[in-house]
């Protein structure tokens, strides 16, 4: 490790971070510009109101920060990490947690301090939350101050770049206008409509500050881990251990094994996972004089109500109006996005709830000619199915008789009752479909017919002749093509 680690105060570790960014300025700003510059140019080209370009660039900061952090985490171990290496490892540093970082955690105040948990330790979900809590139990305040101060540094840098432009402009105070721009100087009321110069000043300011911010947060994180895990002691103890081992002439195999084990261990285990009595342990630690601190705080508190502020001045109200306009713009955009996402989702979900005939009517339905290996086209059937079947049954060919009845019934269902039956459906599916298309006795008859057919076809148990005869008689009642089923029954 080329950075000196020792337990430092919070401020001191921030300073070390600033030194880190200064030391490796080539890599830091190289990587930053390689990623930030193209996106900034595109953003500025897209949006006519450059305020949106600013918003986009601001919003994407965690993405850029990750690249810097990746490079830093390698540089402190003097591993090569130039622009090329970092860009090539983009898949590595973008995951995990980038989505959360850009949405829910975008407003995290200790952002650069907590970034390594997801970006370097690759932790997500509950473990990451616990890790952040442990790291942030001390020095979170310093990290928040870092963010606040760096935000102000950014504002100052932006103002300074702007002022510098003003000073150097030959016209003596005014920046030449570009299109719908305004004359030089910050105009509070116009805060929501930026011109190109504003956006460039912003991007320049962020470029100046952000690498320091990331490095300082990382340094604070390193310091926190140094305190929690004794990294500095590990390095020094290792030196001592090596000396002792090389000094000892009788280095036993056991010791060597131990050394090798230790050599591979430190990256894996530091969490406290002991099974001691937690309550007693907490008691014991809290008994330590370190925790024995009491502070008496006296504060003034207002008793009466505050007076109402005077009416707001003109530019302020203009500022609010602009802000409202901006917010309405953004929410409108978000609404369109939401609609674009919701409508397809809704359609997809509703598709499953539509009634079956509805949903499938759109497809051209063609009744199948074959079902379960049976030919069910009307042409293949005799004109009077029930009579033909009865004849077959009387001749003792029960199987053929039943098969004929079944085919006739299916054919009638498909072609006359327009029941939708697919080639892949089972007998049970057909019975169910039939029960919807036919009246109650018809459905009962069909179910019975199917049952008998199944018994015969799959169960190889022949039904009684009378049973088949009854089925033949009743077939005409329910499925006869004639207008008068009674006649069919008589024949």
């Amino acid at each position, binding site marked *: 490790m*080329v*950075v*000196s680690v020792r*337990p430092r*105060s919070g*401020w*001191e570790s*921030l*300073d*070390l971070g*600033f*030194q880190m*960014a*200064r*030391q490796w300025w080539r890599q830091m700003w190289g990587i930053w510009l390689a990623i930030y510059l193209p996106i900034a140019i595109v953003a500025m080209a897209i949006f006519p109101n450059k305020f949106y370009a600013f918003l986009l660039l601001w919003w994407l900061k965690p993405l850029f920060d990750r690249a810097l952090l990746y490079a830093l985490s390698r540089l402190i171990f003097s591993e090569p990490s130039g622009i090329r290496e970092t860009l090539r490892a983009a898949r590595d540093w973008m995951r995990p947690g980038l989505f959360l970082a850009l949405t829910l955690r975008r407003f995290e105040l200790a952002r650069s301090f907590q970034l390594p948990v997801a970006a370097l330790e690759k932790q997500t979900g509950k473990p990451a939350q616990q890790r952040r809590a442990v790291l942030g139990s001390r020095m979170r305040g310093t990290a928040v*101050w*870092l963010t606040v*101060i*760096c935000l*102000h*540094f950014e504002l*100052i*840098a932006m*103002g*300074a770049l702007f*002022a*510098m432009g003003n*000073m150097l402009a030959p016209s003596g105070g005014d920046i030449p206008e570009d299109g719908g721009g305004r004359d030089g100087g910050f105009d509070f009321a116009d805060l929501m409509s930026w011109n190109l110069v504003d956006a460039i000043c912003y991007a320049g300011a962020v470029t*100046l500050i952000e690498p*320091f911010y990331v490095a*300082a947060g990382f340094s604070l994180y390193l310091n926190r881990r140094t*305190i*929690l*895990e*004794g990294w500095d*002691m*590990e390095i*020094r*103890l*290792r030196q*001592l*251990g090596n*000396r*002792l*081992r090389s000094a*000892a002439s009788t280095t036993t195999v*056991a*010791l060597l094994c*131990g050394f090798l084990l*230790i050599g591979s*261990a*430190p990256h894996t*285990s*530091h*969490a*406290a*996972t*002991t099974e*001691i009595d937690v309550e007693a342990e907490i008691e014991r630690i809290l008994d*330590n004089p370190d925790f024995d601190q009491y502070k008496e705080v006296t504060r003034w508190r207002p008793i009466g109500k505050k007076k109402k502020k005077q009416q707001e001045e003109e530019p302020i109200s203009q500022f609010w109006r602009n802000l409202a306009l901006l917010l309405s713009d953004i929410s409108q955009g978000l609404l369109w996005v939401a609609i674009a996402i919701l409508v397809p989702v809704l359609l997809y979900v509703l598709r499953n709830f539509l009634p079956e005939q509805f949903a499938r009517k759109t497809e051209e339905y063609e009744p199948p000619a074959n079902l379960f290996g049976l030919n069910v086209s009307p042409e293949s059937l005799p004109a009077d199915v029930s009579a033909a079947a009865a004849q077959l049954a009387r001749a003792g060919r029960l199987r053929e008789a039943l098969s004929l009845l079944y085919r006739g019934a299916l054919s009638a269902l498909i072609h006359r009752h327009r029941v939708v039956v697919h080639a892949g459906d089972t007998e049970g599916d057909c019975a169910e479909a039939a029960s919807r298309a036919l009246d109650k006795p018809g459905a009962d008859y069909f179910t019975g017919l199917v049952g008998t057919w199944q018994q015969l076809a799959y169960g190889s148990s022949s039904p009684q002749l009378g049973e088949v005869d009854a089925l033949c008689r009743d077939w005409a009642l329910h499925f006869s093509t004639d207008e008068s089923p009674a006649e069919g029954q008589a024949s």
Partner: protein
Amino acid sequence: MLDTARRVATPEGIEITLRVAGPVPRALGYLLDLVIRIAIMIAIAISVAVLGRFGLAVFLLSAFLLEWLYPVIFEVLGGGATPGKRAIGLIVLNDDGTPIRWPASLTRNLLRALDFLPFMYFIGYCSMVANRDFKRLGDLAANTLVVYREQKPTTARIPESEPVAPLVPLSLSEQRTLLDFAERSGRITPDRAAELAEIVSPLASGQNGTTAVDQIVGIANHLVGRR
């Protein structure tokens, strides 16, 4: 080794370590001083308001003096720190670690006018982050450093246990390491402490786990003279 500590040797041959302070704590210190100055100016403005034009003259004069001499007077007479710096724990010293005097303090504070340009110390900030000692232009001209005030040395709290004599002679820095470990072993997790103690297992006569930690703490007890 990248570090923020600077080693300075005094004429007596004593080496002291100065920990230079960076832009973030210094900005906070400046902010506090600014608030204090503004409060004082408001107080003056209120108290001289009844004096009319003479009051205005008094106010302008005191504002001028306050702006330019406030840091100088505190740095020279107030132990090297303005109230804001004191609150953050900073102190201004010469490069060689000696207390700052009038010429240096005047130089570094009058040059604030340059550091302030073009807007709120932007040049000062750029100079600070480009310099390995975090010097703004005023510090460069006056050869001064802003460092962290040394904390009162806290007495080492080494947990008491049966002292154990080390099996091999240890150098000063190695003794220091073991004392450090004994002191901090209570603040890191037991597993991690055992892991660290096992690194120097020859000292712990090849033992593992918490017994190794106890062994090292025993050696530390021996080193601090509890025999």
